[in-house]
Each structure stands twice: as structure tokens, then as C-alpha cells.
């Protein structure tokens, strides 16, 4: 970046600001379209290699893998309508590290169902072996249903999940620091109800020092963890107004922790639909939504709330007129936010009112209430303008793209949006560094 550009930057406007891009590759779930002919195998290593190499061609900062430690279910059976089956994130990213040279490799890893020293060691190993390209997306769960796959299933109360997460992150950072400071004794000890270990660092620091820390939780606990420890936040606040409010909130929290206002890169998650024309993009977005909320998925969505088999109901007909079960929501779909887990009867009442008022069928209603609308739908030029505005006004530092179809969701960005951003001076034209920390333009440790 030329110095002259820096000179005109103000706290609220930075004309030299750069867009940082990552891809959040969940690999499973309802947003991923699998019905297109020629869709690649979602488990073949070749698919992941193709994506990672595509992102390197597009000069992306990072490739993220999601995590879900139990296969989702519906009505007590494995849920059969969504893409399911995924690799262990650190193993898969290490495999990609061998065949790539620049792209950052970020593993989503849970603090509840991992042993802290083992997790810190595996992440440090990925970081070392990738020559400083590793990141850790820190997530929590309290979910006993997920815990049924682990030695101490369901041991952690909801209100303690961020306390545990903070303890795990601090233990991991202590182990990484012990490796870095060259001391003879690299032992770290913790002895609390939530974190108990005595371990020594076994992996030397990478070229970037330690893995870059990402955080995604949007609750108060999540935001505090971000402010205290994260380098990057994978924020849920994507709409412009929400992004501005989130950035202000984060910066005030950072100040409380004595960290500079730009200590954390903000990358909101973003589904993107690129079209040759506005109408083309809108048509594509509608098609994607209809695929994502197919008639069988609409029925399955309601079954989760009704707590009963609704397969006899016509997705194109009215909402079921039978009463839902009394029990609260089945957690077996994996990722329902805590605030959505209770009060389902009130929720159903609202849906009945909405369906009656607008004469919606089951599938129409579910599309209305469940489909996540892609926040960026338009031509490559429109999207580049929009993203440039976000970063120049400091509402965000870039985006974490959530692909809906492979590889087209990503080739559209690499081949169409990236050149538009480059024309605007808002995107690199070559990698300037080799580590993830350098890609993100984070200050050295």
C-alpha cells in the first residue's frame, strides 16, 4: 500500500483499506447444493485440493473447515436430506498443507470435547508443518447430544461453556508461549474444575509464532472471548448496519482489554450470489433458496418443531393442524442457538398466523422463515463496490464466504469479483507474505 494513501486515512474512513477473503467450508448441511449434475464428491481429497488451489489462485487469506461432532438427526435417525460426512479438520488441513504453499488453513475446533494439551499440540503441529499458515476457529458446545460421542458427554453446563473455552485458550497460549520463549522447562499446569492438565510443549513455534485465533460466537460470552484473545472474528453480523454496530461494540470491548482498535480483523460470514445482470443474480438466488428448502426439507424442518412424524402432510398444502408435542426442541439437528431452543409453541403460533395471513403453504412458509438470504446478490461490479465500502468505512475487514455450490460459488468470486476489487485498489495482486498472520495484515506477535 502506498504511504500517500495512509496519509488520508481517518478513524472512520480508510481509502487504502483492503478486502480480506476466506472461505468457510462447512462441507455438510442444508446450504450446500448436491443435486446439480457433476457436483464433485464431498469427501474426496481431490475436491478439497481443487478448492484450496482455486483459493490460492484467487489470493484468499484462508480456507476454513467447519466442525460438527455428531451427524445430524431427525426423529432419532440420521438426517438423510443434507450433505453429511466430513473429515477431521486438522488432519484434512495438514493434508492440504502438503499440496499448497500460501493459503491459510483454519480448523474449527471445539473447546468442550477436546483435551486442551492435545488440541494445542495438534494445532501447533499444523502450524509448524504448514510453515505458519494455521488458524484455530474456537467454538464451544454444551450439547449433551453431541457429548454422547465422548468420554465425558454433557459434562459442561451451558453457562460455563465460555469459562471452559477461555481456560482452554489460555492453556493453549501458555503452551505455545512456553515453546517460543526457549525456556528449559516447557511445562504448563492447570488445576481447576474446568481445565486440568500438566503438559509440556513438544512443537517449536512456526514462522508466524503460533496459530491465528478466530472466534465466531456472537453471544456476550463469545464477544468477550473475541476481545480478550482472538485475532480474527468470523462475525455473524453481515448486514451493513449490523456490521457497523458490531465493529463499534468490538472496539469498545478491545479498549477494555487494553488492545488496539485494529487488533482484531472482522470477517463477517457471507453467502454471495454473482450474476451477469441483477436479474440473473436474483433468479440464481431464488433457485438456490428453492433447492436449499426443498419440499422434503420443509417437512423435516417442521418435524423438528412439531416433534412428530409429518411425512403424511403435503408440502404444498397448509400447515399441519395437529398439535405439536409438548417437549422442547430436539437438539439433534446440531446447531440451534440457545435462544431458539425454547418457546417453540409460541414460535409455531406465529408461523400459523403468518401462513394464514399470507396464505402460505408449508414449503412457502419454511422458505420464508428458515432460508438464510444471501446478503450479497448482484453483479461482480456491484458486489465489489459494496465490499469496498464495508472495508473503507471500517465496518468489516473482509468476508468469510460460505459456498452454496461447488465449485461455482467460488469460481464466481475468484474469476469475477476479485478482478473488480483489484481494479478498485482494494485487493492484493499477489501474496505479499507467506504466513496467515501476514495475509491478514495482523501485527507481529
Amino acid at each position: 500500500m502506498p504511504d500517500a494513501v495512509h496519509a488520508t486515512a481517518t478513524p472512520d474512513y480508510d481509502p487504502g483499506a483492503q478486502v480480506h477473503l476466506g472461505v468457510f467450508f462447512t462441507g455438510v448441511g442444508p446450504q450446500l447444493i448436491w443435486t446439480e449434475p457433476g457436483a464433485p464428491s464431498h469427501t474426496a481429497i481431490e475436491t478439497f485440493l481443487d478448492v484450496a488451489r482455486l483459493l490460492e489462485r484467487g489470493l484468499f487469506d484462508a480456507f476454513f473447515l467447519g466442525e460438527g461432532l455428531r451427524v445430524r438427526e431427525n426423529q432419532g435417525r440420521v438426517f438423510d436430506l443434507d450433505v453429511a460426512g466430513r473429515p477431521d479438520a486438522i488432519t484434512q488441513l495438514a493434508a492440504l498443507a502438503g499440496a499448497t504453499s500460501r493459503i491459510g488453513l483454519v480448523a474449527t475446533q471445539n473447546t468442550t470435547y477436546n483435551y486442551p494439551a492435545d488440541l494445542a499440540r495438534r494445532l501447533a503441529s499444523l502450524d509448524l508443518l504448514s510453515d505458519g499458515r494455521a488458524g484455530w476457529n474456537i467454538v464451544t458446545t454444551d450439547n449433551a447430544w453431541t457429548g454422547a460421542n465422548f468420554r465425558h458427554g454433557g459434562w459442561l453446563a451451558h453457562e460455563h461453556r465460555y469459562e471452559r473455552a477461555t481456560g482452554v485458550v489460555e492453556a493453549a497460549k501458555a503452551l505455545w508461549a512456553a515453546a517460543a520463549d526457549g525456556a528449559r522447562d516447557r511445562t504448563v499446569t492447570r488445576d481447576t474444575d474446568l481445565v486440568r492438565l500438566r503438559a509440556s510443549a513438544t512443537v517449536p513455534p512456526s514462522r508466524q509464532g503460533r496459530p491465528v485465533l478466530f472466534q465466531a460466537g456472537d453471544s456476550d460470552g463469545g464477544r468477550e472471548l473475541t476481545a480478550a484473545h482472538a485475532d480474527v472474528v468470523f462475525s455473524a453480523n453481515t448486514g451493513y448496519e449490523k456490521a457497523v454496530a458490531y465493529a463499534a461494540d468490538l472496539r469498545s470491548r478491545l479498549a477494555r482489554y487494553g488492545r488496539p482498535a485494529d487488533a482484531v480483523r472482522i470477517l463477517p460470514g457471507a453467502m454471495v450470489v454473482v450474476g451477469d445482470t441483477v436479474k440473473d443474480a436474483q433468479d440464481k438466488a431464488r433457485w438456490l433458496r428453492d433447492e436449499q428448502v426443498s419440499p422434503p426439507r420443509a417437512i423435516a424442518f417442521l418435524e423438528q418443531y412439531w416433534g412428530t412424524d409429518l411425512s403424511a402432510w403435503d408440502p404444498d398444502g397448509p400447515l399441519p393442524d395437529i398439535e405439536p408435542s409438548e417437549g422442547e426442541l430436539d437438539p439433534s439437528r446440531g446447531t440451534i442457538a440457545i435462544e431458539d431452543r425454547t418457546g417453540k409453541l409460541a414460535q409455531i403460533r406465529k408461523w400459523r398466523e403468518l401462513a394464514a395471513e399470507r396464505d402460505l403453504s408449508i414449503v412457502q412458509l419454511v422458505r420464508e422463515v428458515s432460508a438464510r438470504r444471501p446478503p450479497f446478490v448482484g453483479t461482480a461490479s456491484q458486489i465489489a463496490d459494496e465490499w469496498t465500502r464495508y472495508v473503507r468505512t471500517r465496518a468489516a475487514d473482509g468476508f468469510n464466504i460460505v459456498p452454496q455450490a461447488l465449485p461455482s460459488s467460488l469460481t464466481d468470486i475468484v474469476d469475477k469479483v476479485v478482478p473488480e476489487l483489484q481494479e478498485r485498489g482494494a485487493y492484493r495482486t499477489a501474496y505479499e507474505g507467506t504466513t496467515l498472520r501476514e495475509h491478514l495484515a495482523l501485527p507481529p506477535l
Partner: protein
Amino acid sequence: MTRPDPGGRRLHLALETDGDGAHPAAGQARSRAAGGAAALRGTVGDAEAGGFTLVTFADGPLPPRGGGWRPEAGTRAALVSTLTDRIGLAPTLHATVTEPFHLATQLASLDHASNGRAAWVVGAANGADAHATVGASPLDADALHREITDVVDTARALWDSWEDDAVIKDVATGRFLDWHKVHHVDAEGARFTVKGPLITPRPPQGQVVVLAADTLGLGGRADVALVRRPERDAVAAAAAAARDAGAALVFAEVEVLLDADLPAAERLARLDGAAPWQPAGRLRHVGSPAALAALLAGLARHVDGVRLHPAQLGTDLPVLTGQVLPALAAEGLHRPPRPGATLRDTLGLPRPANRFALAATTST
């Protein structure tokens, strides 16, 4: 007691790749380890090009002896999975200090990433320091044996939890998978339970190849028994016993220090001057490559393979690939793996039927 098929005397060759080598002073002159990717790529690449059947990656939750560095073994194996196309990759994962579910997922993922070349060396770290890394305490002998068998059984059940044809992608009905073919495993160990299914579809090999020391008493739960004895007769006797206990294949553990730039005896004296090479209970060959080839040819009457532990990887590996493996190949005792072959193919182990598919077939 000799091998059941002495006519087909062929020896599988495994190489332990940890650190700088088996000798405690291995890194004195020129350390390959420092834990970095370049040395790892070099060692595994050389082993593959030289014709080894598989490489193993020793590991433990504690720093290696002498306080050096050691990245986690599963991550090391994964790094080279996309850089190789025929050699087997066998990290040590410790059953005692891991989550069985993570362990099974990591190994299944390694098998997918390598297109069917993953194996697992069963580790059983049971010291107080090892358990302290997970906030736990050592197990007594009975509990330890039970724990290891429980973890192996659970991993094997999880690897079967997706049937091979579970993903159907049926556009007409919108079903991505057939839920009848993705199973809860409800594994019950003495100290844990695991619901399942695995988050990862069935490994390409069906079951990842399991290697374990015969002394762990896993019998047929392991595909390959690793026999560590200090003398040849003891190796032969232990190999026969391991076969009787159900192991499909038996490998002998052999330490090697070979003539290179200096004669082997002189190299050993110099290294021992820095730190003595204590016996680790394995066969040990210090001498010429030709004598090693003869020793291995003799062992081939009793075992299906050997795992070599070079004193110094940087010095001994080139001699192994340049002289010892070619000598064995010339005698028809060794054949390098075919590109694209799974490790089971290379070892002549069948791809196991899925227990759940089998149950469904039997019940209909």
C-alpha cells in the same frame, strides 16, 4: 516354527521415521528433525522412492527424550498423504490419552486423504506424566488392557458405522444418504461410551490397518503384530505365538546401523561417545548392508515383514534404499508397492466386510 507359506517368502518393509533416528545421539551431527516439514517430506519421499511398504510415525504426549521437539504424528502423516501415492502411513496414536471418537475420525480422515493408505500403530502410554496431560491417572494392568481393547473395538465399530453405499444422492426423493446405512454404534467400554456414527464416511480401506505390539495382547484385533525381541529365536517363537493368537501378519522390530561413510562399528563408537545406545529389546544389526540383507532373508522364514529403526535416518536410510532393499528385491524377497494401491492391497489383507451390512444380509 516357520511362516505358514514359506514358499511365498516375501518381506514387507516398514520404516520408523521419528526424529533423527533410533540412536539418542542421532541428531548430533546434522539434525533432520527440528520438527519441520522439509525433513519429513525428505524422509518419507526417500522411503517411498526406495520401495518401503510403509512408514511409521512414533509419538507420545510428552516431549521426546532429551527434550527435543516432536509434532503430533497424525498431523505428520497427513502432511505427506498428498505428496505420496503408494507408501502406507502409520502414525502412533495413544488409546489411553485420547478421545476414541477423535482417534477414529482422525485415522479415517487420513485414509480418505491418502486414498486408502492409512494405518494405526496402537500406543498405550500409561505413565503418570502422560496421563497428566489429560488430567488423568495411570491404569493398573487389567484396566489398561481393557481400555486398549475397548478403544480398538470402538474405533473399528465407528469405521463400519457408514456402510459403503450409504451416500445415494437420490435427486428424485431429495435423499442424500440412506439412513438405514448410517448406524449408531452404541459402543460400551469399561470407562466410556460412544454413540456414533462417525462424522466421517467409511474409510476407503473399510478398516484402517491396525498395528500393535504383540505384548499388548490384542490378538486378532490387530492386523499386524509387532514383535520386539532381542534375539532371533525369541522373535521366531513370539511370531508363532502372535499368529496363533490371531494376528494376520507379524512384523519383527529391527534396529540398524550400517556401514556408510565410516564403518558401522566406528560410527557406533562415535555416537555412543556422545550418548550410549541402550538396548531397547529389539534385534539390532550393526554392520554391513549385505549382512543385514542376509539377516532379513533369514527372518523372512518366520515373519511377514520387518520394521526398521535406523540409528541415524540421514545416514542409514540412503544405505537401506541404495543397497539393502535392492539386494532383497534381487532375491525376490521384496517388491515395492504399486502406485495407487491401498495399504491393504500391498499387504495382501482383504478389505473387510462391513459388520452392519453383514448383519442386514444375515437377517433377511
